[in-house]
């Protein structure tokens, strides 16, 4: 699947490993949480960057304390209706201090990427390359935000204060 990061289509350097696939000696791989738990030490001993893919039902605390060891967390959106991933993303970033790539995978719709970005996602798996333009447009649809989130967009309440201080 094509990957969008920082507003551009990028080549995905990561390989997603099935639970029964052999682990390559080198290269960036990500595995399911189940496999990460089962083969944690061996996977980390490779010395190469490691990622974990979370199902939507696998919430942030299940991986939270391990995130310093990870370079990628992919969060599944099995359907756009399943919004657990938004909370997972915020908690990984805000509570557990995850600094690596946070990737939204699955049913990632154009009309949701702004929400996802606000919650800390910085990479999006999209259906096809043509989706990029729509995604970029959707990211620019709003410039006013009413609540603080994980991103650095300043909420209106704070901007109002800045404005009235300048007056």
């Amino acid at each position, binding site marked *: 699947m094509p990957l969008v990061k920082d507003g551009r289509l990028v080549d995905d350097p990561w390989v997603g490993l099935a639970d029964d696939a052999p682990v390559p000696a080198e290269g960036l791989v990500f595995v399911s949480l189940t496999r990460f738990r089962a083969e944690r030490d061996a996977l980390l001993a490779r010395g190469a960057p490691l990622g974990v893919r979370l199902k939507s039902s696998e*919430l942030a605390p299940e991986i939270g304390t391990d995130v310093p060891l990870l370079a990628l967390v992919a969060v599944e959106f099995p359907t*756009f*209706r*399943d*919004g*657990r991933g*938004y*909370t997972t993303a*915020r908690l990984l970033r805000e*509570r557990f201090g995850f600094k690596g790539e946070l990737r939204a995978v699955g049913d990632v719709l154009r*009309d*949701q990427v*702004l*929400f*996802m970005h*606000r*919650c800390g996602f910085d990479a999006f798996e999209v259906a096809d390359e043509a989706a990029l333009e729509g995604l970029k*447009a959707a990211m620019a*649809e*709003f*410039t*006013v*935000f*009413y*609540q*603080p*989130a994980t991103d650095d967009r300043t909420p*209106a*309440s*704070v*901007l*109002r*204060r800045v404005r*009235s201080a300048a007056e």
Partner: protein
Amino acid sequence: MYRYDEFDHTFVAQRVAQFRGQVTRRLDGELTEDQFRPLRLMNGLYLQLHAYMLRVAIPYGTLSSRQMRRLGRIARVYDKGYGHFTTRQNIQYNWPALKDTPDILMELAEVEMHALQTSGNCIRNVTADQYAGAAADEIEDPRIWSEIIRQWSSLHPEFSFLPRKFKVAVTGAPSDRAAIAVHDIGLRAVRNGDGEIGFEVMVGGGQGRTPMIGKTIRPFVAKHHLLSYLEAILRVYNEYGRRDNMFKARIKILVHEIGIEEFRARVEAEWETMRGGPVELPADELERIQAYFAPPAFAALPAVSAAFVGSRAADAEFAQWARTNLVPHRQPGYAIVNLSLKPVGGVPGDASAEQMEAIADLADAYSFGEIRVTHEQNLTFPHVRQDDLYELWRLLRPLGLATANIGTVTDIIACPGLDYCSLANARAIPVAQRISERFADVGRMHDVGELKIKISGCINACGHHHVGHIGILGVDKKGEEFYQLTLGGDATETAALGDLVGPAFSYDGVVDAVETLVETYVGLRHDGERFLDTYRRVGLEPFKEKLYAAR
């Protein structure tokens, strides 16, 4: 009233532009109806039995005359000349054309309105006590906090794809006129031991197919911590609410299944991490919003107007109206006036374009340009001089807005039912019309006294039947409409769910059944007892006996 600043204007304009793009993509065939569905639902656009329906948000039921005038214009230009005020203090247009909906949203944006979050699995339009800023028993103006919650919840990035819809209601007074106990979150302003004002927070109330009365999760949350506490509740719900079954996805089921103690523990743990953090509203922003709700420029008047007392003595019909449709105001010499949208034989909650425009003019002349929508589907002028009441009443009468029936047996809540709704099993509107015709005599209405009849056309309970003193639920039995009756429901601070009385009645029989219930009450009541009081004293049996005696 709150007024948009440049941020709010920009936000809503961007929302309209976004929606226009989505509609264009749909009309061009780039989006299928399936793909368009979640997008239109985020903007309050439903597909009903016969047409699209647009649900416009009226935040906490507060309208300016300018906004009401615009709602009337939209009804005339884009619809069939009327709109329908709902139990969530919103207005629904039943016949808009898809291609027109972006223009409607643009017209709304011009008067600082929108259709945001009137549908979808997000935090819905916040509802509140319609007498805010006018009620004598108010501790805190609920509009301030409703507006704060409205802004905080607008396109909330974390909580726009919740397990299910999420409704918040706020009351600023001990009397609950906002039905907070049957909301996902209910907030009641309270004072703690130190005299500090905050909110009692209830969670897990709701109607629908599994009705539940909300439970107090925290007796006191300081005002300045309200947003972090709400965010903590929403986060726990978003993580743990059921997503495997749409009918078990509301927060009430989560609270019920894990228990209020466990739910509270999870919320408290979450709250610990964010209390006092960036989500809390800055103090200067609170002051800014608060300032919009300062009282209007009331005149200094004697507590009771001699003119009002005189008119009431001289004109019996006016006195009847004054008895049911007026509520005491906190400001001496003023009154709260309820405009009935329940004329005998009419459609509960409907208003024509002409009525809306006339109401706007009257609000300018008599109520500082302010109008409220009640969850019981009526309208309110919150601030009217008692001196003006007689004149106002005479102007409301020819408009069909002065039926003297607020709180009485003909002031019926009804959902749109099978006349419009694709979910309905039975008609609700014609049942309400027939009941109101049966009790059309004002003397009889007033003799029966306070009696809240609420009718839903299906178990989703949009007509609030669970909390009706008499609740009526339309069901389908082999293709025929039948109506189940419940007794003793209550949406106020003494909230209760109604008890099912027995086998259902036919469409033809249900009005007789309601009359039997009313007559049974009249026969049993003690002095000063309302229907609900009598029911609570005597229970179901005497009513059941009379109802089924003839069978």
